């Protein structure tokens, strides 16, 4: 039945708008305060070398997180197999690097696009559940990774090839991976804000049904978002392989990336957020890790603290967005 809607309702939401903004801002200020206080009371924390360390350790994880952000923005949550893809593609990179660094990187990027694009098709066209698909894809990739490493528990960098080692150097005190991160953020943001596909990723994430009714090709946009994710993660894989020179175990990328994306403030429901926020989130994760290491917390405790932070952020973000489906 129709309901008569009040005439001058435009200002009515202003009050609730103020409330919404405040909640997130208050929470952000609180978290920042805690982080700063802990930083202050930790010895030797606020030094240039510490911050340099924070920046440098955040490069690769930030790139992975940026990739995941494309998925989140399009309303497809995140992937639970980022670590495996980094592993597999890292191994593949070391196998191919004798072709020259740039051809090898290109091939790996294409592989990443395909691996993620296929998952994107399953999610976008068939409507399969993204969490389950990425877990399944992860195990398939793991099988491949284990096959590649064969009886060797590790793939060692091919001896005598140095053409790609510039990828692990520092330039001006900052690792190449961090410079790459900046580059990717700029390219990625240009993509999201200046291209039709990028803007449509946001629209599909905000309201899928509205996007569909408006004639946007939701399936295609989903696949594009996944491909963007795959390319970023593939590039991170090459950097990781170059850096550590051997690839034998999965890094903490999967969950670190999820934490970075959500802490940065990108909405888990889709349609809101940005790559810049994710970089910020990755820096916070890095800051937190560094601080916990310097305070002597062991890795599981670090995970625990990360979990608390993530839980809190998710709750606050979802509270402030009540009303969206």
């Amino acid at each position, binding site marked *: 039945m129709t309901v008569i809607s009040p*005439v001058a*309702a435009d200002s009515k939401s202003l009050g609730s708008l103020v409330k919404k903004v405040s909640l997130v801002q208050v929470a952000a200020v609180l978290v920042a305060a805690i982080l700063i206080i802990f930083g202050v009371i930790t010895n030797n924390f606020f030094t240039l070398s510490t911050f340099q360390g924070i920046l440098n350790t955040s490069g690769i994880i930030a790139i992975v997180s940026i990739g995941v952000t494309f998925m989140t923005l399009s309303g497809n949550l995140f992937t639970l197999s980022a670590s495996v893809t980094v592993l597999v593609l890292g191994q593949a990179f070391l196998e191919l690097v004798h072709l020259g660094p740039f051809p090898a990187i290109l091939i790996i990027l294409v592989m990443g696009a395909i691996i993620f694009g296929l998952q994107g098709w399953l999610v976008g066209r068939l409507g399969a559940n993204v969490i389950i698909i990425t877990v399944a894809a992860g195990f398939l990739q793991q099988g491949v990774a284990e096959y590649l490493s064969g009886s060797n528990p590790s793939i060692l960098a091919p001896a005598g090839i140095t053409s790609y080692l510039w990828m692990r150097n520092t330039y001006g005190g900052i690792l190449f991976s961090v410079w790459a991160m900046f580059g990717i953020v700029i390219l990625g943001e240009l993509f999201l804000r200046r*291209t*039709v596909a990028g*803007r449509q990723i946001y629209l599909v994430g905000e309201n899928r049904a*509205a996007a569909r009714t408006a004639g946007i*090709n939701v399936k295609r946009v989903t696949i594009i978002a996944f491909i963007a994710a795959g390319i970023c993660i593939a590039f991170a894989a090459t950097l990781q392989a170059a850096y550590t020179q051997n690839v034998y175990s999965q890094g903490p990328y999967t969950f670190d990336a999820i934490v970075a994306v959500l802490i940065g403030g990108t909405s888990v429901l889709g349609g809101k957020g940005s790559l810049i926020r994710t970089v910020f989130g990755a820096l916070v994760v890095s800051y937190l890790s560094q601080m916990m290491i310097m305070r002597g917390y062991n890795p599981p405790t670090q995970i625990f603290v990360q979990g608390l932070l993530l839980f809190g952020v998710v709750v606050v973000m979802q509270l402030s967005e009540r009303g*969206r489906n």
Partner: protein
Amino acid sequence: MVTESVIRAEGIVKHYGPVKALQGVSFELRKGEVHALLGHNGAGKSTLVKTLTGSVQPDEGQLFLDGEAVTISSPHEAQLNGISWVDQELTLIPNLSIEDNIALGGMEKTFLAQRKQHRPRVRQLLDQIGLGHLSPTQEVGTLSIGERQLLEITRAFGRNSKIVILDEPTATLSDFEIERVFAAIREVTAEGVSVIYVSHRLEEIIQICDRATIMRDGQVVTTQEIAGLDKSGLVNLMVGQLPEFAEVASSAKEGGSGDFEITNLTINDFVRDVAFGAKGGEIFGLAGQLGSGASLILRALAGLEPKSSGRVVLSGKQFRLGSTLRARKAGVYFVSNDRKGEGLFLSYTNSKNLTATRLPILAKASIVSRSVLKKSAQQLMQLSGVDISRRKMTVDSLSGGNQQKIFIGRNLNHPKMKLLLLDEPTRGVDVKGRAEIHQLIREASASGIGVIFSSTELDEIMELSDTIGIMHKGKLVNVEARSNTNAAKVFSEMVRELEPEGMKA
């Protein structure tokens, strides 16, 4: 003969901000009667019902149950007081069986499900409503819409309530199913249950109701016994509530890119063999009550109904139904009746919403420039009639009317648009906004595109259409030029009152 009143409302007043939904309404339901509640959209019927079911608290006035003053502060309390209702929101659980759904609607508190014990009662209820061919263990998800509606009604009757409120219960039912509902109503009122029947369908009201209350603008106009009422009298009472329609001078239509022709349109086995057409520059109004199929036709043309078929030729080219992408490609643009769920991006700004669906056009080689977007947004904002200063405000902070303007405005001035479809273009919009939106639609039409809109509101149909097509239960009953017909005729065809006496055009 003393007739007791089961529930009585006196002097009910309810405001929603400056809007007066109910202005001192008094209403009375007698024991064992079937009482119709009539009125055009916005008359206050739903608000009155909501005060009775506890969803809404009146600002002033008093309710009496069996003579005693009561306050009904929640739906749960209403249920405890013996009031049941069936409205448009179906509350059946599709993955559960019929008997489970009926049990959930009841108030029993036992630990075990006790399905076997209750099965005979369930069978009895099903027989009563004509669903005896269904098995109580069947999943509700396997039932048709009509069967589900009957089940909802059965469930309401089966709760041993004193009062049952039925809101447009027959919108999705076949004639046979409607007869079953009537039979159940008669059985149940014979046992002392009282029924409030909210509906537009005059032929049904005449058949089943004892009295009728007509509302308009938040007030009760009259309450009458049906028996003594002339059939056409009721029609006149309803139509007589409408203001005089100004004759909108319609210029000769030259036609344009929006010429279209539809034949053999069939949707979901409900809408059958619909055929109509118009020239570009004409506004075609599909008139029909809830469930008549008007809305379905628009959705099918927009590609949202997979089970649709038919031949649609637009601007000389035929396109196949069933895909939103194909429809868009053919130049069909759709403004749905659910602007929040299916139309707008609520947390985005107005400018973003306006340009959201035309990015491919504004872009050069897939790249959009900020200034182009800004200019387009400003232009569309002006066309929509929403204040430009609100460009950066989010859409969900706007009123319903302004939201609707943004929704429609998004489709204006679209170089590729050939046919604009609007489903209930002024739903939830106040009078002033409605006039402005109608103007928008006329301007859009003037550019030569085709416009089809659907509406359940008679005055909107009469004000806006050049040609009127009337839908009734899935069939296109009549197509007439606006200048060849009048409100009474259209209304009676919408409600399918055959042979209206004394109402020749």
